[in-house]
């Protein structure tokens, strides 16, 4: 129980603080501190897992963590802390443009955010497939509150679609988990088990047919949550209607959770010896997703929708990494994507505030409005589209270089095409945003604090690309 308290104490404190009569201005000082503290606590907790390769660190009966999980946990909390820190500045500016009159909304936002992040943390901590499912479902519920933040018609529509489609999808994932549980009862483990570790250890004794269908349902379910084409339909809506820091969280952290679940399940199948299915399906589907998303990028109208589709594209790439059976690479790609995408969403928030519109047709000349925004924005866009020297280039390159047989080579070709297309499409939009003369009088003047977090994220992404940082979790050359 000790572990449980240490993980939940600070978020719960945040929730309580947010719901008391504390003034918003004070809360804005407290909440970021809390989130960074939480990151510290979790780092301390995961330290043993991080130091050793391949060994599980048991935390309690149904909770354990290993290296990649710990990496994901820290990444998620880091992203959350960054996003919340930026959010305080973002909401302060929101007042200047005449939105966000009710301080209660903002306080609720912080509370929901803390809960959301905790739920995501449990995704990585749980060793039990059932609990994994519960945590993921919980993330949906808490993040719905974030999507609904602006409380207008559009955000309502987005929230509804998000809730319904993800719930249906997640329900299928539950069915899949039940099937996997059923498969474990066929002689392998007495009474069956949902423990991931046990399942992986006894993978070849599981009932293959049940396992296969369980995998299919899990892929469908978690795939819906991860935004795999054509189940991605909720994603652009939710990402574009949520306030920018929340979009950043959804894209930079939530998608990783869903993919992490897929990764865990895939691992079981791949170990079980029936790996063709678990290799072929994610790879082809991932490549297809990336391809479709890159086409969606071409005629975009909303700045945040653009990044949402770019996230879908990256989800496709990560799915390929999962299919290739390389969780470290999956994490590497996720790390780079999260860093860059969060920077992009946060900056897009600034830009939307400054230009007063989300419409890509009307945002022009950001380089003239603020060179620091513009340069960081360009750098983050380059990072997210897999340009060197940012980490995503290395990650994508390593993923592509793993593709060896016929199907994989075709998938690699499709991915290369998708990457090229998405780079062209994204830079077309980014170029239009940055270049030219601004169309609107700016309401929000660029400040140092509004660039700080995105800039830091970009620098981290750069470091992931040009230093040996990835060797920490990548073991193969």
């Amino acid at each position, binding site marked *: 129980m000790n572990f449980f308290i240490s993980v939940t104490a600070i978020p719960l404190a945040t929730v309580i603080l947010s719901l008391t009569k504390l003034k918003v201005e004070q809360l804005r000082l407290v909440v970021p501190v809390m989130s960074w503290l939480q990151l510290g606590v979790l780092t301390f907790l995961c330290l043993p897992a991080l130091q050793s390769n391949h060994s599980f660190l048991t935390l309690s009966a149904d909770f354990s963590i290993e290296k990649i999980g710990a990496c994901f946990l820290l990444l998620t909390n880091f992203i959350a802390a960054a996003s919340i820190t930026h959010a305080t500045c973002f909401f302060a500016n929101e007042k200047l443009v005449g939105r966000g009159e009710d301080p209660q909304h903002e306080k609720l936002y912080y509370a929901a955010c803390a809960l959301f992040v905790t739920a995501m943390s449990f995704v990585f901590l749980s060793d039990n497939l059932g609990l994994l499912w519960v945590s993921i479902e919980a993330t949906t519920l808490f993040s719905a509150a974030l999507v609904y933040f602006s409380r207008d018609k559009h955000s309502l529509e987005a929230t509804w*679609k998000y809730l319904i489609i993800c719930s249906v999808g997640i329900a299928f994932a539950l069915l899949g988990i039940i099937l996997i549980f059923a498969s474990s009862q066929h002689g392998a483990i007495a009474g069956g088990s949902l423990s991931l570790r046990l399942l992986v250890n006894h993978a070849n004794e599981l009932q293959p047919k049940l396992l296969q269908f369980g995998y299919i349902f899990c892929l469908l379910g978690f795939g819906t949550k991860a935004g795999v084409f054509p189940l991605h339909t909720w994603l652009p809506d939710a990402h574009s209607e949520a306030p920018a820091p929340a979009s950043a969280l959804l894209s930079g952290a939530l998608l990783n959770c869903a993919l992490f679940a897929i990764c865990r399940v895939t691992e079981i199948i791949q170990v079980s010896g029936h790996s063709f299915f678990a290799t072929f399906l994610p790879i082809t589907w991932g490549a297809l997703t990336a391809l479709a998303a890159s086409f969606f990028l071409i005629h975009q109208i909303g700045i945040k929708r653009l990044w949402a589709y770019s996230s879908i594209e990256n989800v496709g790439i990560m799915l390929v990494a999962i299919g290739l059976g390389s969780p470290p690479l999956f994490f590497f790609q996720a790390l780079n994507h999260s860093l860059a995408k969060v920077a992009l969403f946060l900056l897009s928030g600034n830009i939307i505030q400054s230009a007063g519109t989300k419409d890509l047709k009307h945002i022009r000349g950001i380089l003239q409005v603020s060179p620091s925004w513009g340069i960081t924005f360009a750098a983050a866009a380059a990072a997210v589209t897999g340009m060197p020297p940012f980490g995503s280039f290395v990650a994508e390159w390593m993923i592509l270089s793993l593709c060896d047989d016929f199907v994989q080579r075709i998938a690699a070709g499709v991915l290369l095409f998708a990457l090229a297309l998405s780079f062209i499409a994204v830079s077309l939009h980014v170029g239009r945003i940055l270049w030219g003369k601004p169309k609107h009088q700016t309401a929000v003047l660029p400040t140092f604090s509004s660039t700080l977090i995105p800039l830091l994220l970009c620098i981290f992404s750069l470091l992931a690309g040009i230093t040996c940082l990835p060797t920490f979790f990548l073991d193969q050359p």
Partner: protein
Amino acid sequence: MATFEILAVLLGFLALALFLGHRKHLKPAIPASLTFLASLTAMASLILTWGHNFHWQTQAPFLLGVFPLTFEVDGLTRLYLLLLSTLICAVSVFSPGYISHIAAKTHAGQYWFCFWLFIVSMYAVVSSADAITFLVVWELMSLASIALVATDHSHQSVQKSAFIYLGATRVASAFLAGGFLWMHSVTGSWSFHDWRFDVESTYIPAFLILIGFCIKSGIWPFHIWLPYAHPSAPASVSAIMSGFMIKVSVYALIRILVFGALNSLWIIAIAFALAVISTFWGVLFALVQNDLKKLLAYSSIENIGLVVMAIALSLYARAHSLPTIADLAIIAAVFHSWNHGLLKCLLFLSTGAVDAQAHTRDLRSLGGLAKRMPWTMAFFFTGSFAICSIPPLNGFSSKWLLYESFFQNILLSPTAIEKGLSLAVICLLSAVGALAIAVFVKAMGVGFLGVARSKTAQRAQEAGLGVLVAQAALVILCVASGANSEFVSRLIAQSLTSSGLKVSYTISNGLPTGTVAILLSILAASIYVIFLKTSKVTRYRTWDCGFGSLTEKTQVSADSFAQPLARIFRPFLRYQNSAKFEGADRRHFPEEVTVETQIISILEKRVYLPALALFGGLAKLLSRLQAGSIHLYLLYVCATLCLLLILGMTL
């Protein structure tokens, strides 16, 4: 280099980015002189370490993920790096005088940062020794150059050019990435040294690599980005882009395919065919351009075609064990890329000087600069003569090697078909040469001679000292390397040999370009002194058939000069004519008639625009999926479920 030094460099670059990012105004002399010193140092160290090969790779804290960055400087690399350093020296001397003319439109800090990034990545890309390093710095180079092309991004047309360039360059790197990855999975190595293209499994990656580099170097039919990108960039940038960046692809083709001993006849034939077409196509379209920079850009396409042609010939000859021809052709390729680098840089710099002074590059409003900018004219003319491969200048020396290798091919190659093909190429080359003369006579004659066609051209003055010195240095190099062509050829052969490709320069009696140069100048000087100088000269009007003085409107226009030639090539050169009549009674008594002719790029209209439309249409079709109805979305979930279940049942 140790860790801390790399760290310092990185931090320095980061700090520069932060510092320069906000500096809209900057005295150009400071960054320019820094650039000059740096490139001078580079040049000096390259020369001082002549003959030594260097190999260097990054150590633990600075890896690309898990891959080290590997760099290597050998003979061939050194040649190209020297060219780069030379060009940068010239451009940095040129810049202060030029930048001040575009200062209002550019963000100086960002410009210089991108410029430095561009330069550094070009140094790196040429010296990179493995595929990953290459691709990383290659992309950096592309990104930096895209930013530089969009220096004056307030214009829609510049943005459009930047986007076209961006698209082309990304497609190129996608092809390269595909080829590299494939080669890796065939050979299991990233190092260029380990790549051999002599077995069938390597042909497809070789083809991908070839196409990638063809796109980036502007070979037909992938050249369309080039006439957009070069004119949009500032002259100092297009000088480097045209002078060196497109040569990087040529260098890489030599480094990868020629050193890798590609022996697939099909790929060589494709490369050869594309090169031949682009040579012809480039010069043909250069003929009808009115923008001086566009004209130069098309001429670059022609010259890159020549270089790739030489490379293809070399590959062919090596695959058929005709070493003399292979050696000649590869020397021709390297030499010509050197020469073209110098020349194009010179011509772009001159054009930049004209642009800065006359505020236009349009041949339709230039003219009469000969009297106002005599030095610039002299440099431009020398460059033009050289690029038309007029002996004894350097353009001829390399083109002659190419001619000679085709000639030898006729003599030595075993079958009649190859002999005939070589003959056809010689024939085509001479036609292309004649066309090039027409192109540059048009550029020189209409741009510099006669009477000014516009007020701005009338007000032009001679460019500043730095601008002239930069050009003069390049001119001297052109003349020197032309006159010492034999020495340079031997140098190239030696450098190639030291890089691992056995090449010998076997021509016993070389070109007497030096003799011709000296003789020509002595003859000209003595005749001038003896005969012309003493002649009594009276100034009078141009012959006007007695009708009174001529105006600038009675001069030949750029279009009309090219018209007789363009008529011959009507199938390729399509004009679009539009006439506008204005006035009260427009039909019978038009007061003002404006006729505009525009050349249509068939390739763009027939191939690229439909292809883009196809992509756009596909995207539109796909976006109909996202129609907003939640029922539809749920249906997708059901459909996917069914599909997956069927897959699960059958597999």
